[in-house]
Each structure stands twice: as structure tokens, then as C-alpha cells.
């Protein structure tokens, strides 16, 4: 048993408490017993023991639940309590937490109320979705209550004051005693049968729980539930709800309250009509103003106010482009012109005049050189010739004649050296220095060889 797990007391107690809390049979249970050991704490909480002949249980009732109690509990008092069972962990004791307490005896009514309420609720008689809306402007208001007493007076007064155009139809009913429930139920049925009532007020003035009991009966509850006409319950009790209150389409705390809920106030209605009228006018005016503004906005728009802008910019654009067209064309042509001018300048610079001039110079030089060269050649030849001619002349054998000698030539042009070469009458030519003498031989002498020279 060494592996046995040990529980802490706390864990065990928590476990037991959870068991208690989870059990629905320990929830909202009704318990009958006698009070003992009653103590009321200064905080208002009550602590006591409930017991019978054979057993006892600790009980706690917190002040929040004691507030509406209509009696003060004391030791020895027999009561019926309603509450939940749970475990108080620090002491490990189970207790009943009392939520409601009734003295026993009345206790039976209370139990019946609780049971009926639970049943009807389960059946859905209290369900919100089954509640009928009240007419906004009821023509006829049905009132089911006692025709005498404060309740009917409060209702009628209130309705007449608030809504004089509403018709009030009183359906008298007993609201207390044995016959009350069937009487109320019957009145409800009658109201429905009449078919002219728009809303029903069912109720009475305040009283003890027994006095109000008819409104806790199933008969009344079902009649209310069956009603086609919306029902306002008006049981004059501020705190406790009757079954009728739960079933009714609307609950009013008092008859006066019911009348106020049943009809609108005529002044409010008038206000409402006027307010709608105002809203109508404001709305149409706003609409008109809105649309006017909308139109104005459009009319004030740039495009409408300055329609010239539609084309002014384009005009500018066109002008600019045209200007560029002119400028670019002009520039293009100027460029071509400059190109031509510069080329032409180069061209002109290369005028062939220069070439011609150079050619001429060269030609002239050449021409001159040629003439000069020829001249020199000819001159040299002339000079050479002149020189040799002079030499030749200087060496001339005929120079002897300059000294008085002469040469005689035969007719055969032979120098006459011997007399034998001629005969008389023959022609002889004598060459002198300054000319020639032509002679005729007259005689011949000699034969002596050295006759002249020796």
C-alpha cells in the first residue's frame, strides 16, 4: 500500500463540494423545518439551524435575501425555506444557503406559486417572443378591475388626462376572494370577444399576498396568455411579481403606471406631429439647399467659370509651336547658308590664279634660262671661232707682203718661182699687201739661179 496516494483534506473537501454543487437536486430546493440557534449578525446575515424530530441542518441567509422578508424569524418558528445546499469548506460542513423564507402555513401558497411559476415558465408563457406589442395610438382601452376603488379611478383619471381621445371601457371583475380568478379570466375573454378593444389593463390596487392571490392563479395566467389583445398587468405591489405580471405583455407597478403605459400623452403626440412636420420641412429644405449647392458647385467649377481655359492653353501651345516652326526653319536655313558660306570661302581661297601665277613664273624662268643657255652656247662658239680666226690671221704667210713683198701667181694660180713657168704675153697675178695687180709678161730674162737672193 506504499503506492497509495494520500489526499489532502482540502482536496477532499473541494471534491465533495463540487459533488454537492453539481447536483441539480440540491438546487432551489424547498425545505420545511423549525428554526433554532437563530443569530442575526450586525451585517444582516442570518445564521440558524433547521431541524425536525430526526435531523438538523445548518442554514445561512444573507442580508441581500432577507431584505424583502415580511416577518422576523425567531427560534421555534416553523418555516419553509428555499435555497441551495453546499459545503462550507473551512469547517467541512454542508449548509443550506437560504434565498427565501416563508412562515409555514402561508408556506403552502408560496410553494404553489413557485411551482406554478416554474411550470408556466417552462411552458413558455413568459417568453419574451410571445409578448405582443402595445398599439401606439389605442382607440379603446379596456380596463379589467373592480369598478369601485382606487385602481379604477387612478386609471381613468390618468387616461383622460393624457389621452382624451381614447375611449375607456370598464369590464368589472372581482379582484379578491375565491371568485376573483374566474371573474378576471372571464372578463379577459369577454374583452377579446368584443373585438373593439385595443389594449387591456388588468389589475387592482395593492394588498397582502392573500388579497392579491387571484393574480397568481393559473386560470388568470392562461387567460392573459390567450388574449389577442395586449395586456398590461397592474397589480398594486411594487416588489413582488404575480404570475399575471410574468404572463402580461407589459407589467406596470401600479394602476396609474398601467394607464400611462397604455396610452400616449396627447401633448406628446401633438409635439410628435409638429416635430415630424418640422423634420419634413427641414429635410426638404436641406435637400433643396443641398441640391442648390451641388448645382452651384458645378456652376462655380473652374471649367464653367473659365471656359476660355479650354482653349487658351492650346492657343499658347499652338503659338509656341508655330514660333518654333519658324525659328527652326530659319535656323536650319541659316545653318545651310553658313555651311555654304564657309565652304565657299575655302573654295574662293583656292582660286587657280595662284596656280596660274606659279606656272607662269616657272615658265618664264624656264624660257629665260633656255634663251640664256642657247645664247651662251652660241656666244662661246663665236668666241672660240673669233680667237682661232685671229690666230690664223696672225700666222698668215701673206704677212711678208706687208713689208713690200709681193707674190706672183701664174694663170694656173701657182706661185711664180721660176721664169720658166711663164712665157711672154701670159697673164700673171701679183698679190700685194693691199690688193692684186694683174700683169702681162712682156719679156723673160734670167736663168741665173741666185740672181736675186745672193
Amino acid at each position: 500500500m506504499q503506492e497509495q496516494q494520500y489526499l489532502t483534506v482540502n482536496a477532499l473537501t473541494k471534491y465533495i463540494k463540487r459533488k454537492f454543487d453539481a447536483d441539480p437536486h440540491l438546487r432551489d430546493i424547498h425545505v420545511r423545518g423549525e428554526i433554532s440557534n437563530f443569530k442575526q449578525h450586525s451585517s444582516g446575515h442570518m445564521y440558524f439551524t433547521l431541524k425536525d424530530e430526526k435531523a438538523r441542518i445548518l442554514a445561512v441567509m444573507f442580508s441581500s435575501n432577507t431584505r424583502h422578508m415580511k416577518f422576523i424569524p425567531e427560534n421555534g418558528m416553523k418555516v419553509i425555506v428555499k435555497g441551495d445546499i453546499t459545503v462550507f469548506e473551512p469547517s467541512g460542513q454542508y449548509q443550506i444557503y437560504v434565498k427565501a423564507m416563508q412562515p409555514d402555513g402561508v408556506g403552502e401558497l408560496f410553494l404553489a406559486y413557485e411551482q406554478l411559476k416554474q411550470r408556466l415558465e417552462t411552458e413558455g408563457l413568459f417568453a419574451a417572443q410571445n409578448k405582443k406589442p402595445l398599439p401606439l395610438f389605442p382607440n379603446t382601452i379596456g380596463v379589467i378591475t373592480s369598478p369601485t376603488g382606487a385602481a379604477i379611478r387612478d386609471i381613468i383619471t390618468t387616461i383622460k388626462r393624457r389621452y382624451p381621445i381614447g375611449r375607456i371601457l370598464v369590464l368589472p371583475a372581482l379582484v379578491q376572494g375565491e371568485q376573483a380568478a374566474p371573474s378576471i379570466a372571464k372578463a379577459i375573454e369577454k374583452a377579446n370577444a368584443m373585438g373593439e378593444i385595443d389594449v387591456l389593463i388588468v389589475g387592482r390596487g395593492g394588498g397582502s399576498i392573500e388579497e392579491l392571490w387571484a393574480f397568481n392563479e393559473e386560470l388568470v395566467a392562461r387567460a392573459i396568455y390567450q388574449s389577442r389583445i395586449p395586456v398590461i398587468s397592474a397589480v398594486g405591489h411594487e416588489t413582488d411579481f404575480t404570475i399575471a405580471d410574468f404572463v402580461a405583455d407589459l407589467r406596470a407597478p401600479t394602476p396609474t403606471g398601467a394607464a400611462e403605459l397604455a396610452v400616449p400623452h396627447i401633448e406628446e403626440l401633438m409635439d410628435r406631429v409638429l416635430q415630424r412636420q418640422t423634420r419634413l420641412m427641414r429635410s426638404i429644405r436641406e435637400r433643396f439647399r443641398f441640391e442648390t449647392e451641388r448645382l452651384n458647385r458645378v456652376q462655380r467649377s473652374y471649367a464653367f467659370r473659365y471656359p476660355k481655359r479650354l482653349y487658351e492653353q492650346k492657343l499658347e501651345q499652338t503659338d509656341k509651336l508655330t514660333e518654333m516652326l519658324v525659328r527652326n526653319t530659319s535656323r536650319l536655313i541659316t545653318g545651310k547658308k553658313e555651311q555654304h558660306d564657309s565652304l565657299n570661302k575655302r573654295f574662293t581661297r583656292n582660286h587657280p590664279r595662284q596656280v596660274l601665277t606659279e606656272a607662269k613664273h616657272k615658265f618664264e624662268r624656264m624660257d629665260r634660262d633656255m634663251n640664256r643657255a642657247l645664247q651662251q652656247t652660241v656666244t662661246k662658239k663665236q668666241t672660240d671661232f673669233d680667237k682661232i680666226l685671229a690666230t690664223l690671221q696672225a700666222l698668215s704667210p701673206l704677212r711678208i707682203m706687208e713689208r713690200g713683198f709681193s707674190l706672183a701667181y701664174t694663170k694656173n694660180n701657182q706661185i711664180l718661182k721660176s721664169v720658166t713657168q711663164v712665157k711672154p704675153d701670159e697673164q700673171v697675178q701679183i698679190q700685194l699687201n693691199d690688193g692684186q695687180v694683174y700683169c702681162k709678161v712682156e719679156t723673160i730674162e734670167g736663168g741665173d739661179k741666185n740672181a736675186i737672193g745672193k
Partner: protein
Amino acid sequence: MPSENNLSFEEAMTKLERIVEKLEEGDVPLEEAISIYKEGMELSKLCHDKLKSVEEQLTQIITEDGSTESFSIDEED
């Protein structure tokens, strides 16, 4: 709009409310809005007149035998 005179106050109010809402929503075309507005003004006048011109209604009680009698409370006490 003679038919509208037969409307109950409640019907007239309901119509009026709807018209007001419709106009306030603003989705109604302008031309329709003006005719709705006209109708609304007439309904408003109708409601106004109905509230203004009503005489006080009688209070009645159903007797045991099922007949209806006028009923008045003792205003005193």
C-alpha cells in the same frame, strides 16, 4: 387627396413617419421628394387636426347583462 381623410390617426402618423424617414434618408429623387413632401405636409395637417379637434370620449362600463353603460367615477375622494 380625399382618401387620406379616411385614415385613422395612427395610419396617418405611420405614413407621416415613413415619409419623414424616407426624406431624411435622402435617396429620393428631387421631383419625387417634393411630391412626398407635399403628401407629408398634408398628413401632418391631418394628424394635427385630428388631435386638435377631438371631443372627450365617454367612459363606459359593461354591465352584467353585457350591455354598455356610461360610467363615471366619483371624482371625489
